[in-house]
């Protein structure tokens, strides 16, 4: 016989379903008015330090079709690599943002600041990145991934360095398409499947 471990198991995830917006982005579902505004509407205030950028993309299923019911959350530090809540954080950076794929086109848009670098647990620096969490009908547990940037030096990033199939590194790197504009598509399965994280 052994002593019990006295640990609890994490509650099982269930899909956010097709109506996840009712709970998370009610205005998007046509439920304006219960709250003064949707939570996480803006990643930044009017005058954040650093470069304001806009990332556009789609979440594509295994057939290549864009999901029109995906809900995405992002989390990042300010331009100096300081997370909201840490000393010295830019008060104009919320760090957190919630956005939906467009109900017609499936395209999402994230307006934020280019994040600064933050450390890896061993003290090395990570390349600038934004963490994403994706939920939708048919996704049984929220998918974690990251956005890196093709105009940053990603060569020494510890996480990217752990991707065994080197050609898959590209799936985490947003492509600059114009001044302050990036494209980042997320492929749930099939050719070019995005690297999803278990961290």
């Amino acid at each position: 016989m052994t002593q019990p471990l006295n640990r609890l198991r994490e509650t099982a995830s269930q899909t956010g379903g097709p109506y996840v917006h009712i709970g998370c982005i009610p205005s998007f579902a046509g439920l304006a008015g219960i709250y003064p505004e949707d939570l996480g509407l803006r990643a930044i205030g009017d005058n954040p330090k650093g470069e304001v950028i806009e990332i556009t993309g789609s979440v594509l299923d295994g057939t290549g079709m864009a999901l029109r019911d995906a809900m995405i959350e992002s989390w990042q530090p300010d331009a100096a690599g300081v997370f909201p809540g840490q000393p010295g954080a830019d008060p104009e950076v919320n760090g957190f943002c919630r956005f939906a794929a467009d109900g017609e086109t499936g395209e999402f848009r994230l307006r934020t600041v280019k994040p600064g670098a933050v450390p890896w647990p061993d003290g090395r620096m990570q390349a600038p990145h934004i963490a994403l969490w994706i939920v939708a009908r048919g996704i049984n547990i929220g998918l974690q991934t990251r956005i890196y940037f093709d105009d940053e030096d990603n060569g020494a990033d510890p996480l990217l360095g752990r991707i065994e199939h080197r050609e898959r590194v590209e799936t985490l790197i947003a492509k600059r398409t114009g001044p302050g504009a990036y494209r980042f598509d997320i492929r749930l399965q099939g050719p070019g499947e995005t690297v999803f994280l278990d961290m």
Partner: protein
Amino acid sequence: MSLIPRDRSAHPPALDPGYKTSVTRSPNLPLLALDSSITEETGPTFGHGLIGPLDNNLILNWTRGESPAIGERILLHGRVLDENARPVPNTLVEIWQANAGGRYRHVKDSYFAPLDPNFGGCGRTLTDEQGYYQFLTIRPGAYPWPNRGNDWRPMHIHMSIFGHAFAQRLITQLYFEGDPLIALCPIAATVKDRGQLEALVAPLDMAASRPMDFLAYKFDVVLRGTRQTFFENRKDGM
């Protein structure tokens, strides 16, 4: 402090053919498993200033207190804990649900059960210092959905919980004790571990009910915990 790696056996697999939409929306390749970094170990915090007085009262929040929602009045309450059994205080809990007839107030829900003019269908609250939360709502109806020929969702409430680290983020659904549709539901059946599925079923809690007013159901949530060790060989994080 680093997060305890996720026990994936506690969760549904990404691909479950019984839930057809998961077939083309599930990654095929293995997830990249790594220790958490500061990006995963920090997360947004929300203050009490965010929460309006009726935000956790779905019976009244749609009409701003004018007129109560139709349906069986219930108190949904419980605690948010972590895997180390410690309460998670001041964390945001959001819920959404169908009305008593099984219809969502959503542009894309075309089920012919009527909308309740007095019911919106979402609510939110912050846990208190002991991790406790509560909502007053109506019991949602079961509803049919296109999957196999005749699939119905059991009565359920969707719940989103933040925790204090972005990688603790969780969305789940809670079911109601005694509902025979749970055993028939392909979405409930994505949870393969029997104990884990049972933990999604909220029991009737007569002790928390109020005579002549509402019944109560209790639902506790467990989020990922952080590693507790004396041998932490790194600087204090968040």
